[in-house]
């Protein structure tokens, strides 16, 4: 194994939560499916079946994704701070591993490895639950969860989300690493204070809101960049359940907008800022061995 493989393995040893948390969520959801009680809706048309399948299957993915985002944030804030705090950074620095390799391996774990672990956990959980629901509930509802095209689309959705969020949130992740490599204490506070100060300073001095807009777009602008969110009717279908109407994407497939995402200047500005911040985190790691 090369150094990067060992560095990633090391992160799994240190942060057992990387796989324990998604496993626990999976087990809880499976238990809920096994013993939970609920009113099952009646599905009559193939379209209804397809739409319900899509919603149920993606709901599990969303659950995992939300937890993952919170965990990854915490991981990034701790990853270059914890070993300075307990001074074990001196042990790691006594080994022939460059600070660049250390920082990049942790970034890779946060942006790619942890999401992949959650992806596998979400898939296994969804599969088990689909199986349980098929046995416990009506054949129609069970059948709704077994559309082969839906499953394929979900896999592609996950991989697409992992890649595009890694790129989109690179500057955010890199900022967290800069703080983690720099702060002497109160990493959370230091994460928030400089952007807040910039925002307030800009407002008082220039009366403008560019910082606020840039931060807002970065934190909340991922979905509009990576997915078709317009009102274009070809992407949406309306399904009627008794008296209710639900508007859903015509297919997950049609929702993805890779061309838009990769051609957006916003994406590449973020990559450039992210790369600069990663370089900054590496320089800080070189120089700050102690709290």
């Amino acid at each position, binding site marked *: *194994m090369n*150094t990067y*493989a*060992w*560095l990633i*393995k*090391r992160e799994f*040893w*240190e942060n057992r939560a990387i796989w324990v948390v998604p496993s626990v969520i999976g087990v809880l959801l499976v238990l809920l499916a096994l013993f939970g009680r609920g009113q099952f809706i009646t599905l009559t048309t193939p379209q209804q079946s397809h739409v319900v399948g899509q919603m149920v299957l993606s709901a599990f993915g969303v659950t995992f994704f939300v937890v993952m985002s919170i965990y990854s944030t915490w991981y990034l804030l701790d990853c270059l701070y914890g*070993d300075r705090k*307990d*001074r*074990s*950074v*001196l*042990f*790691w*620095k*006594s*080994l*022939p*591993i*460059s*600070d660049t*390799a250390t920082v990049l391996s942790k970034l890779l774990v946060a942006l790619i490895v942890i999401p992949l672990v959650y992806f596998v956990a979400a898939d296994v959980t969804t599969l088990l639950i689909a199986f349980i629901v098929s046995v416990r509930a009506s054949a129609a509802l069970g059948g709704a969860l077994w559309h082969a095209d839906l499953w394929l689309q979900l896999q592609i959705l996950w991989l697409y989300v992992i890649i595009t969020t890694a790129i989109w949130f690179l500057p955010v992740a890199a900022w967290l690493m800069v703080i983690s490599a720099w702060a002497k204490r109160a990493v959370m506070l230091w994460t928030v204070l400089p952007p807040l100060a910039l925002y307030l300073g800009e407002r008082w001095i220039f009366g403008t809101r560019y910082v606020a807009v840039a931060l807002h777009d970065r934190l909340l602008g991922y979905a509009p960049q990576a997915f078709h969110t317009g009102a274009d009717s070809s992407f949406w279908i309306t399904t009627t359940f008794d008296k209710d109407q639900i508007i859903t994407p015509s297919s997950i497939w049609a929702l993805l907008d890779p061309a838009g995402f990769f051609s957006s200047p916003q994406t590449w500005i973020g990559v450039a800022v992210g790369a600069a911040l990663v370089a900054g985190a590496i320089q800080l790691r*070189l*120089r700050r*061995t102690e709290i």
Partner: protein
Amino acid sequence: MPALIEARDLTKKYGSFVALDRANFTIQTGRIVGLIGPNGAGKTSALRAILGLTAYEGRLQVLGREPFRDRALLMNDACFIADVAVMPSWIRVDQAIDFVAGVHPRFRRDRALGLLAKTQITGSRRIRELSKGMKTQVHLALTMAIDARLLVLDEPTLGLDILARRGFYDALVDDYMDESRTILITTHQVEEVENLLTDVMFIDKGHIVLDCSVEEIATRYAAVTVTADHIDAARAEKPFYERRTLGKTVLYFEQPRSEALARFGEVHTPSVSDLFVAKLSGGVQ
């Protein structure tokens, strides 16, 4: 053959505080060098600079490399224990061995296991479950299993009991040391290491105040236990330090003329620890 470590005008500042002030020193291969100084003298800054853990001013070459720029490469040939208890608390002993074996080309697993077999420590234990002394033992076993050309030890035996300390230094000299290796060691327990050192460097207020081999001490310094009736005559020879203990007065001389000094009393070579006190206390007490 080029020196293993060569420092020219090595300077380290923390804000306005100068921890190392244009220090010059050279360390040759095959030596066991004691870097000795009071707290805050710049020992740790010097070690940090040598190990590439901190940026510095001046010129510094370790194993032909610039430490701060090439730390990762340097660590293929150098290893260190900087202070105690810095093993990560969450790691298991066997994981630590696997990891170091995985990333270090010169790590010898059999040697680490051999060293650990002499202790009570098993591979499944986590570092946080071990006593302070055991943590140090694991760290030492890992470090001494690396075939390094330079070993840097900063207070390596802090927290060890006297048996373990003696055992560690014996192993260091008997099993580890050979003519291709160099050891740089700092400790407050000067008495404990003075018999194994080949060279001593005294550091005070960021300056190297003494840099010589242990053999040279005998030719460069002398201590004379002076009897009361000779004291004024002896003082005329300009001792650099004077100490009174138990009714006796010991005068320390630099570049001594032994035949002249013998008139005043018994002449002997000061021990490293006595010389340290003499050099750093400064002046006549």
